[in-house]
């Protein structure tokens, strides 16, 4: 599957001949340098972008939930209404309220339910976007650097929450991250990308929940990082 763009008169292959299978109920993480095509791949999976060649096959009845790289909140709705947004019209009021409450609890924003998007900090907005996708309880959950604006504490908490939810419901999850440690902590499989291509697939055969201090995690992290950074390693 490929996706090309025209930028300033030149053709750019954002995703270039990727063939990948994401088994139902699996959790996969994708890492790669800035601009390597992670977001584009996720958009192809979500059906938001048409592939220039190739196709995406999935059960059309599967509901997809996406956490975009930006928060993308409706500026005219408050926090709770933004989280409720995908649910309204498909669940009855009581259930919507319950799901919203639960999701806001999970991301630690129960107190902020009446704030408007302009009144949120960057990390708070990102957490509202996460809550919106979680409240939807989709069959396929796609997350694009969902924790990038969060501090270590909040991030760790939400990583655990995500693993818990995945273990409980076993939906298909694909998560893009630029944090290799996060990729190792969360993925059954880590996909490494470079300039539009998949250049590595690492199966992480460790039980959940995983600890960042686990030597196996540290090992995986070091190996993937080394490959990512390439010959001129400026990193530990």
């Amino acid at each position, binding site marked *: 599957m490929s996706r090309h763009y025209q930028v300033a008169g030149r053709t750019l292959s954002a995703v270039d001949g990727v063939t990948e299978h994401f088994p139902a109920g699996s959790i996969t993480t994708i890492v790669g340098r800035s601009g390597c095509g992670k977001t584009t791949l996720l958009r192809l999976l*979500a059906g*938001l972008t048409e592939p220039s060649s190739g196709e995406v096959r999935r059960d059309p009845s599967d509901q997809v939930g996406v956490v975009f790289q930006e928060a*993308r909140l*409706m500026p005219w*709705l408050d926090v709770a209404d933004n989280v409720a*947004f*995908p649910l309204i*019209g498909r669940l009855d009021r009581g259930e919507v309220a319950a799901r919203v409450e639960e999701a806001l609890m999970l991301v630690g924003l129960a107190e902020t339910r009446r704030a408007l998007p302009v009144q949120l900090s960057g990390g708070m907005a990102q957490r509202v976007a996460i809550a919106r996708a979680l409240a*939807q309880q989709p069959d396929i959950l796609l997350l694009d650097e969902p924790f990038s604006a969060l501090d270590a504490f909040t991030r760790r908490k939400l990583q655990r929450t995500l693993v818990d939810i995945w273990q409980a419901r076993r939906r298909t999850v694909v998560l893009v991250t630029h944090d290799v440690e996060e990729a190792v902590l969360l993925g059954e499989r880590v996909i490494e990308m470079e300039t539009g291509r998949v250049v590595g697939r690492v199966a992480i055969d460790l039980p959940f929940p995983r600890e960042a201090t686990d030597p196996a995690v540290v090992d995986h992290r070091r190996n993937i990082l080394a490959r990512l950074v390439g010959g001129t390693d400026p990193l530990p």
Partner: protein
Amino acid sequence: MSVRRILVPTTVFASVAAIWWLAGRAGWTNAYLLPAPSAVVDALSELTASGILLKHTLVSLQRVLLGFALSVALALPLAVLMSTSRPCRAVLDPLLEFLRQVPPLALIPLLILWLGIGEAQKLGIIVLASFFPVFLGFRGGISGVDPKLIEVGRIAGLARREILWRIVLPSALPELVVGLRISLGYSWRALVGAELIASSAGLGYMIIDAENLARTDIVLAGILVIGAIGLLSDLLLRIAISRVFPWLSADLEAARA
């Protein structure tokens, strides 16, 4: 704030009236073409006392509101249709663009042919005058919607109709409001043209009649009444909008603040 909101415009209008009076006294203006404020006030109170003003005002108010409502009722679905359907756009765009340029006064013979000389013809003139601002404003608003928010709707599995109602409409609202306000203004402005033919009531008719009878004081009184009611209806429109779409009021305030 609320006091200032009333005080400042009142002061402004009072100053204009004072200048107008002074200009008349000093002989800078022709008393026939621009009668003194006192003459206009006399005409106004006479018209009010006899109940004639109320009658004309009610007739015109009904025409303007109906015509404006018709414009909006036509413009909104058409704007949506043309923003979403390519064939509709291909067919309707040239026709509407053409119509948009044509003086409504030139169309009166055709309007008489199609709509007769009754109420329909008068509404037709008002609709012709007020349709395009709300139509084009809404289309502009729709085309300015952030595609990223639409994607959120698509992912949420929203139907086209829902995306329209829940994302496009709220996003396009600020521009739509500008369009609505321009349109409402043009509805009032169309009154004289609309009541040019076969009317026996209405503020536009009153003005034309007064002009024919060389009663410039009544003409000016009519202008003042239309201006004032227009101001009032604009205010009510803004209040209605900020009631229905409270998150907009900040925007509206910003526009005025």
